[in-house]
Structure formats: C-alpha cells, structure tokens
C-alpha cells in the first residue's frame, strides 16, 4: 500500500507498510500512481513526459520495489496477534491525586475534576499503595512511569511529595526507576513546587491554551476570573528553569480558535520550545465542539504552522510541536506502532480512593472499574478486551495510511463516540492523517537545503 500527496511543493510517497518515505520528482510521482495497474508502454502513452524521462523514473521505481521500499504488503497481523498474546506488565499509572480543580475549563472531560463522582483528594496511603501495586505488577520492567494528574494535582501537593519520596525508597530494593510526570494548570505553582519538580519530575505538562483572550475564555477560575496573567509568567520561568527540556506547554483548541496556529506561535514567541496543542474532543452538541465542516480550516492551519516551523527552524529559532514530531530513521518498533496505546493493560488510572480504570478517560464509567490498588485487578475480562484491541481489530484502520503512527487511535474516544473501543473517532483520524502528512513534509523540507519556500 502506498500513499501519495503533494504539500508545500514536495511530492511525497509513503510506502505505508515498510515505513519508507520518498520525495520524488513529478515524473516519478505520476509513474508511481500508474505503476501497479499499467505496463511501461501504457504509462508512456498516458503521460505527457518524454519517453526517456518515464523510462528512467520507471527504472528507479522498480528498483525501490525490489529493495522492499515500495508497494510492500502488510505482513504484521499474525505478528501483532503473537505480541498481544504475550504476558503484559503494568508499566505506567495515572494517579488522580485530586478530583478537584481551581479552574473551570469549559471543555474539561474531567468535569472540573469530579469525573462523574464527587470531589476528593488522594491520601498518601492510597498513593503509596498504588506504587506498591505498580511495582508488584511490573515484572522485569525497570522504568516505571507515574503521572500526577487531576483535577489539579498541586491542590494536594503534600501527597505528591510523600508519594515521590516513597517511590524513591522502593527503587533500589526492587531494581526499579520511577519517572514521574506532573500535569498542572499553574494556578498554585510556586518556587517550592518548581524546585521539587525540577529535582523529581522527569516531565511536566503545563496546561495553557495560547493567546490570552483564548486562554481566558476557555480556562477561567472557579469564580469566573481570567487565569492567563496568573499562570503565564510562572510557566515561562518554569520552562526556563528546566532549560527548555522535559516539559510541554499543552493546550487544547476548540471551534473558538480554529486559527490555533496563532496560539502555537504565541507560545513559541514567548520562548517555549516544547509545545503541544490538541484538538478538543467533544460531542457535536457541545458549543465548543469541532465539527466536520471545520476540517478544511484546521488542515490549512496545520499547513500554515508547518511552513512557519520550517522557516523558524532554518533561522535557528525552531521549536518542537508534539504532533509534528516524527523520527523517520529511529522511532518505535512495528509492535509498538500497531498494538494500541496500552490502556487497560500497561497503563491504568487510579482514582483518589484507589479504584483502577483502563485510563484517565474511563474514570467514572462504572462498567470499566477494574479493581483497586489494595486488592488488585478483579475484572481481568475487561483487561483482556483492551489487550486484544489493536489496529487489526479496527475496520477503519485497514486501509488508512496513518495507522503506523496512531496505533489505531484512542480507545476512549472510540467508546465515547461509538460505544465500543474497537472503532475510531473519525474527526480525530482525519486530523491525525493531516498531521502525519505535515510532519513528513517538514522532514522533506529540512532535508532539502534548496527547498525553502517564499
């Protein structure tokens, strides 16, 4: 299977199943489109290029095919079945340190921290039991990941510190290393928290939506006040104190800022070098929801952002945009690429009272309650359902060129829109495909010293 597209003056050909990516000239681009269906003679009759050009391109295409870099088949289905049948270990927990929040973001899937339940803070006892559960269920896995999530985890920061300290005390004894992540809205961020995070947190995720007017509208405080001025100076200082590494400023865009490239560039202009901006996920009736009609504008924004990133990179002012990050020569193995996100098996969420769910987005959905950190997993049948979920169990992924980049998409989104984890949230797929195209185009442009556009 191949996928061909033109973007920013580049002719790009993805050989979907080998992962090979080629930038080709116009003749070769058109020859590739006809190669499998027609003979050389028929192609020569159909295309208006010279016979010599077509023959030369045809020869190069044939050579790529013989090298296994073009027109390869998908040979991984049985392999993924075998990988998925292996015993899995738990390697990451999302700890809901606080089901409470000091902001009232309009799009919050956690319902301002309450997750269809009630306000509650995790106790140190539950947090420590969660780490014990993780260690006990992690097999030989050395690096264990723990995300302090909410609600807003800094509302319960004493417990965060206690749990981190407890985790460090377990490391040597069990030959484990904890990688902690803190996600915060910044309201309570102070020097003490920053200092602690810089010492102990492998990653911090700083929630901010971009331009002041966008951020203030979508992320007000509980009493309706703006929050941008409250958090932005601290985030700038925090990112600098981490030497612009191992953090993300992470925003959400909605139908209110479909011109979200401006929000990304606003963050870049403030000096942030690690930026993520995710499309909101919401049912169509929500006032902020992204609709199918919005896609053309969103695609244009991704194109605009990609071109600007190339320009800035070449000027020595580059930054990372999470969804355009792509490693074409390294990157994950094919097992990782096709076997799904790991929710319900490798990655679990823990509520403030210790209940286990397949991931943070399923918290509060009682039918997905797996067990708790004290007694372990009781509903292994649910875990098995998540374990079996992968690219090949999703019909929509079968012919999608992006399936090796999204691993079949988010099961929670699939469940929320279709009532099953084996489907896909279509708008998200459309945007993912566009982002993959842009990410590859950026690589093509940066590999091409002559290729700068106006």
């Amino acid at each position, binding site marked *: 299977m191949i996928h061909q597209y033109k973007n920013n003056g580049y002719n790009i050909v993805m050989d979907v199943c080998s992962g090979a990516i080629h*930038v080709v000239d116009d003749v*070769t681009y058109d020859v590739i489109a006809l190669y499998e269906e027609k003979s050389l003679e028929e192609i020569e009759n159909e295309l208006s290029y010279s016979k010599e050009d077509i023959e030369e391109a045809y020869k190069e295409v044939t050579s790529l095919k013989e090298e296994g870099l073009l027109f390869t088949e998908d040979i991984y289905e049985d392999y993924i079945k075998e990988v998925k049948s292996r015993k899995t270990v738990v*390697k*990451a927990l999302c700890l809901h340190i606080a089901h409470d929040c000091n902001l009232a973001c309009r799009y919050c899937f956690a319902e301002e921290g309450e997750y269809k339940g009630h306000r509650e803070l995790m106790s140190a006892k539950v947090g420590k039991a969660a780490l014990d559960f993780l260690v006990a269920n992690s097999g030989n896995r050395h*690096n264990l990941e723990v995300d302090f999530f909410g609600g807003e985890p800094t509302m319960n920061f004493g417990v965060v510190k206690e749990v981190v300290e407890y985790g460090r005390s377990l490391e040597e004894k069990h030959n484990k290393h904890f990688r902690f992540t803190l996600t915060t809205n910044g309201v309570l961020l102070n020097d003490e928290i920053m200092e602690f995070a810089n010492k102990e947190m492998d990653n911090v995720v700083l929630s901010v939506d971009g331009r002041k007017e966008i951020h203030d509208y979508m992320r007000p405080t509980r009493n309706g006040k703006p929050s941008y001025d409250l958090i932005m100076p601290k985030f700038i200082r925090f990112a600098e104190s981490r030497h612009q590494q191992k953090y993300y400023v992470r925003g959400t865009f909605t139908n209110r800022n479909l011109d979200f490239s401006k929000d990304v560039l606003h963050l870049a202009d403030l000096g942030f070098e690690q930026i993520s901006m995710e499309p909101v996920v919401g049912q169509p009736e929500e006032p902020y929801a992204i609709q199918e009609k919005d896609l053309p504008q969103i695609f244009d924004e991704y194109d605009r952002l990609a071109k600007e990133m190339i320009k800035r990179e070449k000027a020595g002012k580059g930054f990372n945009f999470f969804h355009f990050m792509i490693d074409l020569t390294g*990157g994950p*193995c094919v097992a990782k690429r096709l076997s799904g*996100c790991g929710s319900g098996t490798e990655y679990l969420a823990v509520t403030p009272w210790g209940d286990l769910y397949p991931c943070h987005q399923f918290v509060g959905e009682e039918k997905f309650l797996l067990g708790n950190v004290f007694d372990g997993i009781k509903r292994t049948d649910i875990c098995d359902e998540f374990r079996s979920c992968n690219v090949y169990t999703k019909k929509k992924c079968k012919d999608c060129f992006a399936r090796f980049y999204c691993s079949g998409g988010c099961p929670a989104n699939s469940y929320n829109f279709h009532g099953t984890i084996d489907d896909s949230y279509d708008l998200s797929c459309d945007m993912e495909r566009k982002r993959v195209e842009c990410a590859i185009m950026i690589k093509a442009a940066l590999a091409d010293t002559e290729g700068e556009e106006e």
Partner: protein
Amino acid sequence: MKRVKTLTGNKTYGTTMCKGGCGECQTSCQSACKTSCTVGNQTCESNK
C-alpha cells in the same frame, strides 16, 4: 537515485520485528497526549 530521495534510509518496519515488542518504551499518554493516541513520535528505549 536521480529522481528519488528516500528520507528513511534502509530501516523498515520489518527490520524491527525481530527485537521489537520489548515494552520498555513510554506509554503514549504519559507524554502529552491524554486525549488522542500518538505513537509515531515516541522513542525506542532500546535505541537510546
């Protein structure tokens, strides 16, 4: 090649089957996702 520039070198997905699936890598939502699923930008722990 004159008309083709391959950005990915000779490494293909197939070459990762042999030693792949060790599971030491980060889970996708542990980075900055939380509402989507992106694995193409993850790094391989054994390549570090």
